[in-house]
């Protein structure tokens, strides 16, 4: 049977990149704000910064450095500090907030107006531009992660098959709406761990009930027995009547949390001696630390890391060093539902490389719906986020 275009669209798998923030047009002047600044005596820096952070914290300008070190001719340096924000129109010193003005007077500082960039830089080029005005900090975005610029046919097929696996896993439950999570090593296309929500119960045999998954816009038409905790994670205590007395429950055992736990367990099982080796190398480092310089300590430590790797290569045989990442570095996770903020942060901690989810979660989703955690520059790790659109046939179940 031939299908029309609309049907074909609905039946097509698709991968959408969910960016850190809406893209900024290029060649656009970066927005700035005015601040009062002053040259200060380096000896006073500690005292002044302490005081300024109390009376005039730069709350919404975390990317802006409070202090600027300026190289002068003849190898001299001078130190400049941001006193406080200034008004955009009225540049008179009288507009400075009262307690900062007192500080300026008592230390006889000469305040002047200067400009700093309003928003954190989203590229190295932007950052270099910013620093010409006043130094800022820069956290590189996730540009180097595969897939942001598109997927080739082979990679797409791989993404679709893992998402299909996650959806099948979610559907294998007792009929309630539940999330499923699958951690994958994309370099060898291998499932590392998989899990479903264990909020209400676990280790309980599943009933052979018919269930179906619908796209989110049809949620209201479904008659629920249970509050779908995927959508309302904070309503865990409301399901008393429906739960078998004997079952275990845990309001925080969302699929992503459980799957991280089992991937960690797998790691401990596959590489049981890793911890001990690290322990030894660190103890050795500890003994040396009182006598050797920090630079030397670092060297000792690195040598030991290499030894550990060699040892692992010898003892593990079948598991190469390359197969033993730090936490989930380099791994992808497939989630049926967009994770909540707890799970999204857990995936940052565990160093997941890419997240694929099928359904946005308008009530609790943290990767674009309610929060956009992938855009939080202060975090020490950043993953790339994708939504996978599924054809409807994948959602229905025949049991």
């Amino acid at each position, binding site marked *: 049977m031939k299908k029309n275009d609309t049907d074909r669209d609905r039946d097509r798998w698709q991968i959408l990149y969910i960016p850190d923030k809406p893209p900024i047009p290029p060649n656009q002047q970066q927005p700035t704000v005015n601040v009062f600044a002053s040259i200060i005596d380096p000896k006073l820096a500690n005292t002044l910064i302490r005081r300024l952070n109390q009376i005039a914290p730069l709350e919404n300008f975390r990317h802006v450095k409070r202090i600027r070190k300026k190289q002068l001719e003849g190898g001299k340096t001078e130190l400049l500090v941001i006193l406080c924000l200034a008004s955009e129109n009225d540049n008179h010193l009288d507009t400075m907030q009262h307690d900062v003005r007192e500080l300026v007077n008592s230390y006889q500082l000469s305040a002047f107006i200067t400009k700093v960039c309003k928003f954190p830089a989203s590229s190295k080029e932007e950052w270099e531009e910013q620093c010409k005005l006043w130094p800022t900090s820069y956290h590189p975005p996730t540009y180097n992660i595969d897939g942001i610029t598109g997927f080739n046919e082979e990679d797409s097929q791989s993404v679709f098959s893992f998402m299909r696996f996650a959806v099948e896993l979610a559907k294998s439950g007792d009929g309630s709406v539940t999330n499923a999570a699958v951690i994958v090593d994309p370099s060898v296309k291998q499932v590392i761990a998989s899990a479903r929500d264990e909020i209400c119960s676990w280790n309980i045999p599943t009933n052979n009930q018919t269930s179906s998954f619908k796209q989110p816009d049809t949620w209201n038409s479904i008659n629920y027995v249970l509050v779908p905790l995927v959508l309302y994670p*904070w309503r865990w205590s409301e399901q008393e009547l429906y739960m078998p007395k004997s079952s275990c429950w845990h309001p925080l055992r969302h699929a992503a949390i459980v799957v991280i736990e089992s991937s960690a367990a797998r790691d*401990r099982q596959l590489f049981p001696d890793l911890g001990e080796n690290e322990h030894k190398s660190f103890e050795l480092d500890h003994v040396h630390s009182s006598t050797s310089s920090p630079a030397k300590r670092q060297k000792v430590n690195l040598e030991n890391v290499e030894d550990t790797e060699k040892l692992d290569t010898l003892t593990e045989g079948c598991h190469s060093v390359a197969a033993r990442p730090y936490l989930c570095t380099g791994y992808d996770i497939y989630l049926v539902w967009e994770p909540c903020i707890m799970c999204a942060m857990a995936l940052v901690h565990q160093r997941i490389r890419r997240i694929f989810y099928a359904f946005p979660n308008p009530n609790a989703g943290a990767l674009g719906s309610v929060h956009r955690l992938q855009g939080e520059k202060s975090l020490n790790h950043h993953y790339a986020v994708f939504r996978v659109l599924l054809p409807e046939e994948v959602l229905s179940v025949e049991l």
Partner: protein
Amino acid sequence: MASHEEDCSPDTLAFMELAIQQMASHEGDCSPDTLAFMELAIQQARLAMDSLEVPVGCVIVEDGKVIASGRNRTTETRNATRHAEMEAIDILLEHWQKNGLSKLEVAEKFSNCYLYVTCEPCIMCAASLSILGIKEVCYGCANDKFGGCGSILSLHLGSSEPLKSHGVPQGKGFKCTGGIMASEAVSLLRTFYEQGNPNAPKPHRPLAHQATH
């Protein structure tokens, strides 16, 4: 500190600035009980340090009594989500279920609990505490990179937007006070990071820089 700007990473510098700012604003106006519970949390952090874990510890208090304690176990478990708070929460959930408490009773229990933790709960832990509906959180130093109680996100405020269909607020808020014994908490962390976290991935910039000041 400022004259060593080149020697500190911007993050370290910001972390210390924040910590100092908080110390000054809160030290002195805490009750003796608060300080005593925080001291217990710091003891937990020291236990973590002794096990080569990032030194963060906590206690959970109900009716003026410590009912659970926890410390970081991320290295031992190779599970980076095993923060002190999660450890303590799991102890309580297991204990209360063993005693046959219902979900509603457990929710009621959490709504009477105070958490004392040496470092501001991260976004994950703050969300967990909000889901469980804890009453109050007191923390030591701010968590400038991951903090979920004011530093990066403010999950302790709950959500002001009511749900369309049910009118129930998303995630519960909880009272949150920072800066309690922050200097002790920071000094543990500083000691730990200065000697080098053996479990961290290889740094982008040489560690020696961070250890010289």
